[in-house]
């Protein structure tokens, strides 16, 4: 078990006092923050654009079409590099490279730490939270724009090019957001606390993943001033190949976001494997952490395919490699396969964390142990594994080898078995429970309600004969909004209401929370349920014109969508009021009476989370169990009772292998 070499438990996360190196001693106005990052980004873009123009100026295509993909690609890529340089992501590796002792810049004490590169996972988590909300609200505004256009079947607000760009931009921003929606803020913030660690495995990589993620937002937004892109979020070639320069922003943007996703997934995975507190055996790891494990594995393993696909696309557009163009030995199916080979695991990247959150929350508000802990983890891992074997269900009508279709029908339908486990766990936990309808619980229950429709409609889609009618139409659209929005976004809000007291030290207002919930729940369903029908009645996706007979349904969906959009404002008001304005909203350390390890810390959580590395005694689901031990011993005294040495010797016994498993709280 050489992998188990870990720092002594009581030294984990202890950072040596900052060295006063040359970097640390710089005057304040020279310090690095989001402003210097912006300057770096602009300078990088200018440099890249200049280089691109210099390199490609002789080409006929560039001259006649008055667009230069190379300039745009290099501009955006160097812009991202400039952004990262400006914020200081490369300071450490560069210093190391030149053999200097890298300076430790201490964490700023005030709010400015949120606009600087931070190595504290809690700061990064909140940075992520701000970022995903920015993505979410930008994408939401674009959704409102879509629904406005669809108010009328024939009279138009935007030109068709603008409309299709809005749809693509909405989809891409939302997908980028959704793949980090939970893993970014809650994953980074909570996982170390839940596993009893003082830090993430790679704090610098964690910070880098955030700053890469945030740069992706600007990259994908530049698509709009660059003229938009006509392909939607799926970017099919050869439409991709013939599109204008806005397409470059899509390709670079997804490449960049993908890089951040790989890093974030890798980091979380290593953290959970190596930084669990003593006593936190695999049978005690909270299910939320299990969902993050499964998700991180998908992030780390599936996303490289996306990066490659985007890279090929960029090559096609700049170096005319023609990898996606049939007549030159390329193939338009290549993009479809690469994209969906990533794309389907991606949809579980966007589902599993939601499952994890609700499974974590249900025991707290039912005051019962989680039912079927093993079933839950098996379900998540099963889903994650199977998700690599289903991607061609997106290509049923594309002319793939016809004999492949039954196979992919089978794998797709099989995935509903482990997904069903999640329902078994939820329903078993609710059995004879003592349910408390706090706001997080409402959102958690809503996930079960919504995702059911999303999942069942997925079985319809996986049935090839039915797929003939529903593929490429609003039925699909409704299906994936039910899973992503009805599942992940509802789960995310459950998590936000649940953990905000720990994250910010403030309670969110319960009345406003309930109002937000009911508005969002009702209007979500009223918006998207009619879209199943719209799809069955033959409206394809991504169209600006539709049949007159479908206007009533579309108008109804649009009006409900506006109200759905408005429901988010209730949340914003609630959040701003409770966290920043209301003086009496201060949260107790453990307002829900949760047994989760993260709730056993004081609020605000101290910089290194735990004074002493806790010794985990049980899983956090011992509600109502008589004589169950506390979830963990925070004083470290349990080391003595367990009789194990306080530090592993030569990697012999890993930090997580004692005390021996089998406490009373075990699910065995």
């Amino acid at each position: 078990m050489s992998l188990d070499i870990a720092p002594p438990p009581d030294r984990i996360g202890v950072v040596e006092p900052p060295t006063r190196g040359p970097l640390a001693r710089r005057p304040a106005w020279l310090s690095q923050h989001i402003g210097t990052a912006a300057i770096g980004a602009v300078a990088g873009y200018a440099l890249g654009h200049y280089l691109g123009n210099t390199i490609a100026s002789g080409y006929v295509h560039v001259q006649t079409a008055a667009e230069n993909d190379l300039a745009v690609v290099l501009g955006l890529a160097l812009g991202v590099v400039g952004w990262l340089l400006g914020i200081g992501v490369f300071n450490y590796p560069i210093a190391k490279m030149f053999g200097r002792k890298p300076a430790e810049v201490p964490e700023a004490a005030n709010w400015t730490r949120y606009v600087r590169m931070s190595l504290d996972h809690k700061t990064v988590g909140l940075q992520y939270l701000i970022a995903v909300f920015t993505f979410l609200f930008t994408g939401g505004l674009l959704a409102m724009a879509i629904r406005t256009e669809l108010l009328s079947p024939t009279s138009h607000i935007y030109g068709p090019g603008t409309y299709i760009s809005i749809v693509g931009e909405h989809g891409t921003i939302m997908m980028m957001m959704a793949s980090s929606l939970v893993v970014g803020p809650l994953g980074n913030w909570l996982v170390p606390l839940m596993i009893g660690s003082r830090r993430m495995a790679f704090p610098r990589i964690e910070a880098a993943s955030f700053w890469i993620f945030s740069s992706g937002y600007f990259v994908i937004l530049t698509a709009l001033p660059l003229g938009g892109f006509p392909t939607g979020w799926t970017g099919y070639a050869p439409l991709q190949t013939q599109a204008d320069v806005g397409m470059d922003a899509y390709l670079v943007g997804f490449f960049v976001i993908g890089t951040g996703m790989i890093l974030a997934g890798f980091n979380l995975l290593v953290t959970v494997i190596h930084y669990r507190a003593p006593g936190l055996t695999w049978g005690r790891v909270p299910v939320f952490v299990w969902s993050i494990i499964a998700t991180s594995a998908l992030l780390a393993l599936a996303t490289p395919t996306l990066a490659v696909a985007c890279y090929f696309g960029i090559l096609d557009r700049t170096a005319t490699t023609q990898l996606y163009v049939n007549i030159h030995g390329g193939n338009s199916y290549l993009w479809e396969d690469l994209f969906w080979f990533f794309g389907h695991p991606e949809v579980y990247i966007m589902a599993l964390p939601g499952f994890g959150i609700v499974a974590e929350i249900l025991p707290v508000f039912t005051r019962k142990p989680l039912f079927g802990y093993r079933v839950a983890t098996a379900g998540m891992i099963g889903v994650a594994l199977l998700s690599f074997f289903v991607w061609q269900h997106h290509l049923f009508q594309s002319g793939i080898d016809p004999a492949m279709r039954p196979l992919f029908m089978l794998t797709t339908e099989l995935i509903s078995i482990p997904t069903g486990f999640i329902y078994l766990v939820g329903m078993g936990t609710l059995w004879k429970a003592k349910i408390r309808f706090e706001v997080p619980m409402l959102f958690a229950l809503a996930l079960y309600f919504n995702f059911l429709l999303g999942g069942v409609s997925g079985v319809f889609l996986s049935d090839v004969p039915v797929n003939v009618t529903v593929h490429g139409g609003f039925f699909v659209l409704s299906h994936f909004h039910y899973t992503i929005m009805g599942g992940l976004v509802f789960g995310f809000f459950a998590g936000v209401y649940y953990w905000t007291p720990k994250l910010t030290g403030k309670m969110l207002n319960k009345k406003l929370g309930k109002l937000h919930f009911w508005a969002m729940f009702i209007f979500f369903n009223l918006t998207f349920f009619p879209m199943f029908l719209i799809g069955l009645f033959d409206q394809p996706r991504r169209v600006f014109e539709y049949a007159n007979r479908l206007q009533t349904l579309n108008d109804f969906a649009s009006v409900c969508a506006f109200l759905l959009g408005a429901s988010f404002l209730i949340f914003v008001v609630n959040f701003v009021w409770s966290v920043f304005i209301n003086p009496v909203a201060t949260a107790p350390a453990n307002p829900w009476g949760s047994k989760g390890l993260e709730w056993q810390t004081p609020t605000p959580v101290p910089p290194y989370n735990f004074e002493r590395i806790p010794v985990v005694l049980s899983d956090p689901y011992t509600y109502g169990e008589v004589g169950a031990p506390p979830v963990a011993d925070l004083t470290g005294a349990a080391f003595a009772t367990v009789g194990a040495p306080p530090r592993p010797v030569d990697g012999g016994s890993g930090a997580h292998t004692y005390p021996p498993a089998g406490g009373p709280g075990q699910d065995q």
Partner: protein
Amino acid sequence: MSQVVGGDGAVGSVPVDEQGGRRPNHVWRIVGIWVVLSVVGDLVFWFVAGPHVPPGTMTTTASGAQFDFNVLFVVALPVILGVWTYLVYAIVMWRASRWVGEGDPVRGPTARSNLKVQVAWIVTTTITVLAMFVFGTVELIVPAGAGGAEGPNPVWTPASKSILPIQVIAQQWQFTYRYPTFGGMETNNLIVPNDTTIAFHVTSLDVIHSFWAYQLGVKADANPSVDDVAYTKTRQTGTVTIRCSELCGIWHGAMFDYGKVVSKAEFMKWGIATEKALAANTKNLPPFAWTYVPDANGASGVYADTSGQAPYSKTQKYGATKAAQKIVKSPTTVTTTATATSSTATATSATTSTATSAIRKLTRQASGTTL
């Protein structure tokens, strides 16, 4: 339902202790409600909504899709209702206020697992899923691909000896239809005979489109240089809505037209008359082929804007005719007529290797100039 509400009080008075004493039989109540709802729901759906479920019954594949949808629905509805019944029952019956008010329950059910329930659940879902799979596969194979795309080499083909082939050529942003059995004539509207097995050969001249003949229950992607086949058999006459269902650029939303299923006699009359009327046009078209490779200027002049350059002069050699030259001069015209656009497309006789390699060479040269 009133049964449940009536039962409320009784449950409320049940003591906290779950281990002993009276226990309302939740299982049977939930199952009872569920069975009633499911049976009613399924019957109503099957008999009231079922016959109207899209895409209707105009063809064998449309009725097949309708039948499959209905079967899936009849299975899915009880699943949905089961979970919903359970959720609602739990929410109504097992609220915290019913037990011990605000404090933590002292004792209560703490089961962490239940082997029987878990096994039953897994077995049931697995059987359901496998049954769905078998059903779906049979329904896919027996009707020869169920109207879906079978690619260039269909493995499941209709038994019928007389299959009418119709080629669907997609391009930004319209469909044209070629009838190889009518001299390779090309029309803007899809006309098909009733009571006939039809093989749609779908291909594209530029980007990926998808040919969706809604009432026919047919959908097949149009990929450049791929001959994507889908079968159906017509059973009723009427109008057909055809939409492109794969995003193909800015005018994707406007890429639709209407076709007709007419009686066999009418179809023959129309076919023969149209073949004659279009004979002059047909002569200008590239010879009929299963796929077409766009010439240097791109099928609709969008791969590369070559205005200002000498028009690519060697088109003659690989089949395009004068019409092609004409369109080269105005490559930005979006809605080119069927005749003109297909003329720019060059027929590949994919089987004659000499022709193909010649085209490769030419197009490569061409792309060199447009880099």
